[in-house]
């Protein structure tokens, strides 16, 4: 692996001048379409905060700040989160372990009511600066409509996770326009750091860098299927299947003017194709600024049902009617290389013949 991950302060900001003007109009377009979304959602959500609002960036963490660990979806044991707890404490943060860690209700980290109470408590506790979801799995959608996110207006905090946690990240972006962190979770912290691969360690450290306010700046090698170009917009996305299952609900994302990243695992190729068609048919590709295709762990075709098209074929075909830049194999997804992304924050995506750069503005 010769991927390079440069985490540093902004470089070459000068080239972004012209792009910025474009972004302003894109952002306006997004704002107006967002109000349409909120009208649709309003019938379903009685106590709804105002939807059109400026980007809310939670305060970055300083040594001594507290990070809560909770399980809104799948279950995990106290022992299993120890590597994460130790590492986070070594970064100088306090860890508050939620009541759901160690709880188990079949596949869930406790009953719905327990997971709801734990997450709500962390949202409401002003002494907690960030909420790290212990793992994904399935279950966040059981809580999302009952969670009261209004404490975040007084005390914005970072919510951290991916996979099933895409439900929460999308919901927060759409309804509160608050930034969050798409990254590995407790279950990906290695037991033995000495044996962990450098990319895994770098992925874990990128969470700290995101939390402490470093500008995210990722440079990855080019890929033959990439479509060159530059884009500027809010970075949103997540697990593709999860995004599909939010469609039609008030947690659904409005992708106009954004840089969208998608990843998935365990899906058949035909299903991935159907999900990209879903993006198109729900208008999510129409006004996209850029597309980042992360890792896709494809489920092998059943015998006799060979799909005959690769992920690259599927995406290349779907993006043909549009002109936005597209990159493949970006290190985000269910894999060792899964770098922290600041969800909802403005980024530039620069896809060139020699490299791909994703840079937080």
């Amino acid at each position: 692996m010769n991927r390079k991950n440069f985490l540093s302060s902004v470089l070459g900001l000068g080239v972004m001048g012209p792009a910025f003007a474009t972004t302003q109009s894109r952002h306006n377009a997004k704002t107006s379409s967002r109000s349409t979304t909120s009208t649709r959602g309003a019938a379903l959500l009685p106590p709804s905060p105002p939807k059109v609002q400026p980007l809310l960036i939670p305060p970055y963490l300083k040594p001594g700040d507290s990070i809560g660990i909770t399980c809104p979806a799948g279950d995990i044991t106290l022992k299993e989160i120890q590597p994460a707890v130790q590492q986070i404490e070594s970064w100088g943060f306090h860890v508050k372990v939620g009541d759901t860690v160690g709880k188990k209700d079949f596949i869930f980290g406790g009953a719905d009511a327990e997971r709801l109470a734990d997450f709500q408590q962390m949202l409401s506790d002003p002494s907690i600066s960030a909420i790290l979801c212990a793992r994904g799995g399935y279950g966040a959608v059981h809580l999302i409509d009952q969670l009261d996110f209004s404490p975040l207006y007084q005390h914005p905090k970072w919510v951290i996770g991916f996979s099933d946690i895409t439900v929460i990240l999308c919901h927060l972006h759409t309804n509160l326009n608050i930034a969050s962190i798409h990254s590995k979770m407790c279950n990906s912290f290695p037991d033995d750091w000495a044996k962990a691969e450098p990319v895994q360690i770098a992925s874990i450290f990128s969470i700290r860098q995101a939390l402490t306010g470093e500008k995210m700046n990722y440079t990855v090698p080019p890929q033959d299927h990439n479509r060159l170009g530059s884009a500027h917009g809010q970075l949103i996305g997540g697990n593709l299947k999860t995004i599909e299952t939010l469609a039609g609900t008030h947690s659904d994302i409005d992708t106009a003017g954004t840089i969208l990243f998608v990843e998935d695992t365990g899906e058949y190729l035909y299903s991935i194709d159907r999900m990209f068609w879903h993006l198109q048919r729900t208008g999510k590709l129409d006004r996209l600024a850029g597309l980042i295709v992360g890792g896709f762990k494809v489920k092998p075709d059943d015998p006799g049902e060979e799909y005959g098209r690769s992920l690259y074929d599927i995406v290349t075909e779907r993006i043909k009617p549009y002109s936005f830049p597209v990159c493949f194999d970006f290190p985000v997804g269910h894999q060792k290389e899964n770098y922290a992304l600041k969800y909802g924050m403005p980024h530039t995506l620069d896809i060139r013949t020699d490299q791909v750069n994703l840079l937080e503005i």
Partner: protein
Amino acid sequence: MTIIPPYLNPGDCIAIVCPAGYMSLDRVQTCIDTLLQWGYRVRVGKTVGGPSDNYFSGSDDERLADLQQMLDDPAVNAILCGRGGYGLSRIIDRIDFARFQKNPKWIIGYSDITILHQHIETHFDIATLHSPMAGAFNDGGAETSYVQSLRVALAGQPSGYSCPSHPFNRVGRAAAPLTGGNLTLLAHLAGSSSASDTKGRLLFLEDVGEYLYNIDRMLRQLKRSGRLDRLAGLIVGSFTELKDTQRPFGARVEDIVLDCIREYEYPVCFGFPVGHAIENVALKTNVEYELTVTASGSALTEC
């Protein structure tokens, strides 16, 4: 007002096409023979047993052209989809329904064909037939009451079905137009222009080969997108070849369904003969039926 396509008379023509997955001609032969036996003429589209060597029965253009031709041809009175699989998502927005709208005809199928049913219901308010397809005629299937129910429906005789009582049923009675189909596809259509409004309707659901957690997730999507709260009634068909995660999900389909709709009061019928099992009756979508769920059993009768 829902438009009911003309029912079929002896000598009318049924076209068979494959708008999604590939199907060999020999798998369709019994269906062809049976339809002829029923007194209809049969036209076999180019996408049935064509030269395709991949998953689909033809390229998008070929599948679209075949279906389009049958929709447009006034000599075709009904279109039977050979099989489902996957593929309608890729062509639905390119189908021109203008002639079909002027001269409606029965569109027959299920599974992936749910997309056609939902799209036609939403855009044109024309009745369609959720029903067994060509494969169901094989291995003696043509003689079953399920395939025969298609014959009855095509001939214009009102249909009525009953099923035994089920411990999870919620008793009640409701008369309303039918809508529904494959749960995965109803979820997939959410947010698109093909998604139907379920308000005041009898919704029927079925699925195959899905994980229990995913059934839960899709039902919650329907609920969160406002498509379970104002139903007239819910009809739960078969959920076959279910998969479970390594660590069990811990709930059956019945538990999942009832948990999702516990705050609503409409009648619910479980175990209805619709789905990917042999038990799959022809249902006229968009047509009014009366659902009666009592302690002794359920009935669904065309009004």
